[in-house]
């Protein structure tokens, strides 16, 4: 049986709906020892900022029940180094490159997007789960005015595909998704990590030096799936589903819930082949169940 796994996100065409989630795939190249990167639907980079960022003091990560809590602090090499040192090699894989971006101020976001508009990448994913320094550290994710301004300005300078990555810590997440659609985002991706805490009971200190961290992994899958489905019902732009995906079954749950594509995060740490196994698993599932086009799965939840 011929099966079609191609999906569209804005102007992007993905040959399959599976990509890594930002921050769990480095700048892509670290995985080339494990598999052929051109098999992926797309590559999503670690979050990039206008200048390099050192990140938080360790301890930055801790295992929790069926998940991990992290506060890496968005350490990255900066957009300029990415363009010079990583992009040329990444381009060789001939698959869409999505660059995750963030800033501490609206202006910083705009500057990263501007710089990226000058090079050959396919999409930007705007991470709005970041503290807005100018607003005293309130997350952009909860600041509707800031999001509007962000999108309005980025649209003017960046004309390829724009994805906004939503925070699950803001409720209701649908409202922010609707806002993004209204202000011209081509897609929304969700969820980023959920705020969490772990405590060392002997030292009576947070395990992570940054106190709070972000929870990810299979533990959060049901929460992510609910949010994806709720957003899917409210917007017309494609939704990218993220959160706790470990197997092709998880991925298909997200597709049925309404995700046009999915991202795999923490699972890559456990098994660096996860993305590839999920792609194969989806194809097998489609064959077994005689579904010849993946678009016939997307958003088909009956209730």
């Amino acid at each position, binding site marked *: 049986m011929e099966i079609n796994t191609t999906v569209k996100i804005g102007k992007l065409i993905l040959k399959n709906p599976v990509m890594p989630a930002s921050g*769990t795939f480095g700048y892509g190249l670290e995985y080339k020892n494990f598999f052929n990167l051109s098999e992926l639907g797309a590559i999503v980079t670690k979050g990039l900022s206008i200048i390099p960022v050192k990140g938080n003091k*360790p301890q930055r*990560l801790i*295992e929790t029940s*069926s998940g991990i809590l*992290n506060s890496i602090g968005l350490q990255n090499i900066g957009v300029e180094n990415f363009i010079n040192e990583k992009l040329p090699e990444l381009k060789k894989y001939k698959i869409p490159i999505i660059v995750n971006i963030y800033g501490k101020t609206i202006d910083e976001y705009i500057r990263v997007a501007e710089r990226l508009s000058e090079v050959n990448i396919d999409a930007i994913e705007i991470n709005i789960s970041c503290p807005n320094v100018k607003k005293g550290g309130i997350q952009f994710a909860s600041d509707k005015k800031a999001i509007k301004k962000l999108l309005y300005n980025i649209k003017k300078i960046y004309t390829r595909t724009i994805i906004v990555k939503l925070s699950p810590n803001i409720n209701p997440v649908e409202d922010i998704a609707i806002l993004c659609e209204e202000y011209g985002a081509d897609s929304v991706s969700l969820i980023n990590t959920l705020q969490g805490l772990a405590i060392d009971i002997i030292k009576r200190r947070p395990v992570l030096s940054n106190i709070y961290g972000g929870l990810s992994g*299979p533990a959060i899958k049901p929460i992510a799936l609910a949010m994806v489905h709720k957003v899917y019902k409210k917007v017309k732009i494609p939704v990218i589903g993220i959160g706790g995906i470990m197997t092709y079954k998880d991925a298909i749950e997200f597709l049925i819930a309404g995700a046009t594509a999915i991202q795999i995060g923490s699972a890559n740490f456990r098994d660096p*082949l996860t993305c590839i196994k999920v792609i194969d698993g989806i194809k097998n599932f489609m064959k077994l169940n005689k579904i010849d086009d993946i678009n016939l799965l997307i958003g088909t939840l009956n209730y």
Partner: protein
Amino acid sequence: MIFDSKIIYNKKISENFYHLKLKIKKNLVPLPGQFVNILIDDSCDIFLRRPFSIFNYENEKLEIVYKVIGKATKILSSKKKGETINFLGFLGNSYLDFISNNDNTSNDIILLGGGTGIASLNFLCQWLKNKKYKFTLLYGAKTKKEIFFLKNFKKFNTIFTTDDGSYGNKGFITHYLEKIVNNNSLIFACGPEPMLLTIKNLELKNKIYASFESYMGCGFGVCLSCVIKVKTDNNGFEYKRVCKEGPVFDLNSVILEKD
């Protein structure tokens, strides 16, 4: 690289310490100082892999020595001969990156190890011995009970010390380091951070390379959880990955927690 390797044996060697030997089929050879990242269980309860230094590699057989300290190592200790272990390897840099060809003529090499840190030094000892380098191993433990593979380490030029004097010399190995070090000594260390700090505080002029441990999310460079502070030229620092740029670093370039 991802390995699926059969257990040849997984033996208890002393209180809480185990010795695991695996059959390696792939055509890949590890270097002293490198480590593997083991998938402990099918269940997501232990979500992350766990890193272990390579204790030895010979004739397509890989050995690690580990201490049971928590849930992952407990499950690992229950695995039986014939079962398959999935691990990533061979990860990180190597002590050898810091040994030049003329070190075997010009230098005395000193190795210091404590606790499970001795594991990676054993592999280095084997290599040095094969290549006929001159070296002394300082092996420190709390008590005689915590010294494992005593016989094995006796094969090398080893000075044993225990905190309580129950075997070898009484006291800390850093004390003996001061006694035997000379201007040409090239030093390698692996052990708990307080030990490394003590060595650093001796303010020796020698080149000292130490292997570090840190909490690892991935083991292959993508999560940025395992970083430690390394000095930069401009009096600042940058975070380097223990799993990728390390685990072996120039000790004096590393800014330790209690520095």
